[in-house]
């Protein structure tokens, strides 16, 4: 049993569709297009296949932006609902993933802005401060804190680029389309973000190897 399995809050036992090996990230794009076209015709079950396929990645990417699991779930859910409402605007000749992931990142950023506005409101003197949520308590392992801190130290675009490249296995071109930056910028973001994370997490990565 590896160190991460002992300390980290473990991954769900149910293997997500998108958590299969990332050797062929474009493999299912045609299938996704078919589901999307059926969803455009009003088939909610077809959209359900897309939800299953993208649930995990949407939650991970939203969490990288919001740095809070509960807010990330809210953002991911809002993103799916927005995609469903606007599915007619999706062009089936183009890949579904960049279109949807752009919705996820925009939704998460909108939520973060709204959360900042909320946070700037002064608290009334008699309002008790909230303690950590159960999710935060569960996620308060030393390694988890180190990873959160290392991610928080990175600029948002570096975080997103590293997660999409190293965790999700997206190509530079896909990431460029999602973030709206040139591919060269994505390479630079991955390079700098990855170097910072490796430096910050080197003891943990060393133990895992």
């Amino acid at each position, binding site marked *: 049993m590896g160190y991460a399995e002992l300390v980290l809050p473990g991954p769900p036992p149910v293997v997500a569709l998108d958590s299969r090996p990332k050797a062929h990230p474009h493999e299912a794009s045609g299938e996704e297009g078919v589901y999307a076209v059926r969803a455009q015709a009003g088939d909610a079950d077809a959209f359900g296949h897309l939800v299953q396929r993208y*649930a995990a990645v949407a939650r991970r990417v939203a969490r990288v932006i919001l740095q809070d699991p509960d807010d990330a779930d809210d953002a991911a859910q809002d993103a799916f609902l927005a995609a469903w409402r606007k599915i007619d605007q999706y062009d089936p000749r183009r890949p579904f993933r960049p279109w949807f992931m752009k919705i996820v990142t925009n939704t998460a950023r909108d939520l973060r802005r709204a959360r900042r506005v909320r946070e700037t409101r002064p608290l009334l003197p008699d309002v008790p401060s909230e303690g950590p949520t159960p999710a935060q308590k569960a996620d308060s392992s030393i*390694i988890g804190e180190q990873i959160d801190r290392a991610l928080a130290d990175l600029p948002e675009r570096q975080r997103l680029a590293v997660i999409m490249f*190293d965790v999700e296995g997206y190509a530079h071109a896909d990431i460029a389309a999602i973030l709206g930056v040139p591919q060269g910028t994505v390479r630079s973001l991955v390079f700098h973000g990855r170097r910072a994370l490796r430096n910050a997490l080197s003891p943990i990565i060393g133990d895992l190897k």
Partner: protein
Amino acid sequence: MTDRNDFDGSPDRALGELLRQHLTPPDEAGFAARVMEQVRRTPRDSSWDVLAQWTPRGLAVAAVMLLAMGLGFVAATSRENATPETQSISAGSPTEILAVPGPLSDEQILTVVLEGGVRQDQGDRQ
């Protein structure tokens, strides 16, 4: 420390797996079920909804254009209705205006120019 090159163009599996384990939330099936429950209750945007998003901007542009056209029409009409006599009565003749000591107002300057132009036209016609 990993022995990988930071310039490496392929994903870093060790780093990627560590981040994946940390960032992957539990209960994926429950989350997907909640989302689908919401999806089934959410109506999709129709073409009219998409067009409706543009309606406020379209109305604003139309209002500005109508206002500009209206102002242009009013200015043109008042210019046509103005006669040399009414201009002279309201503002005085150019000679009278120029005879007054002190700086001229914008209206007086305009009257001198217009009146002078009208008189010149009348002189040309005769």
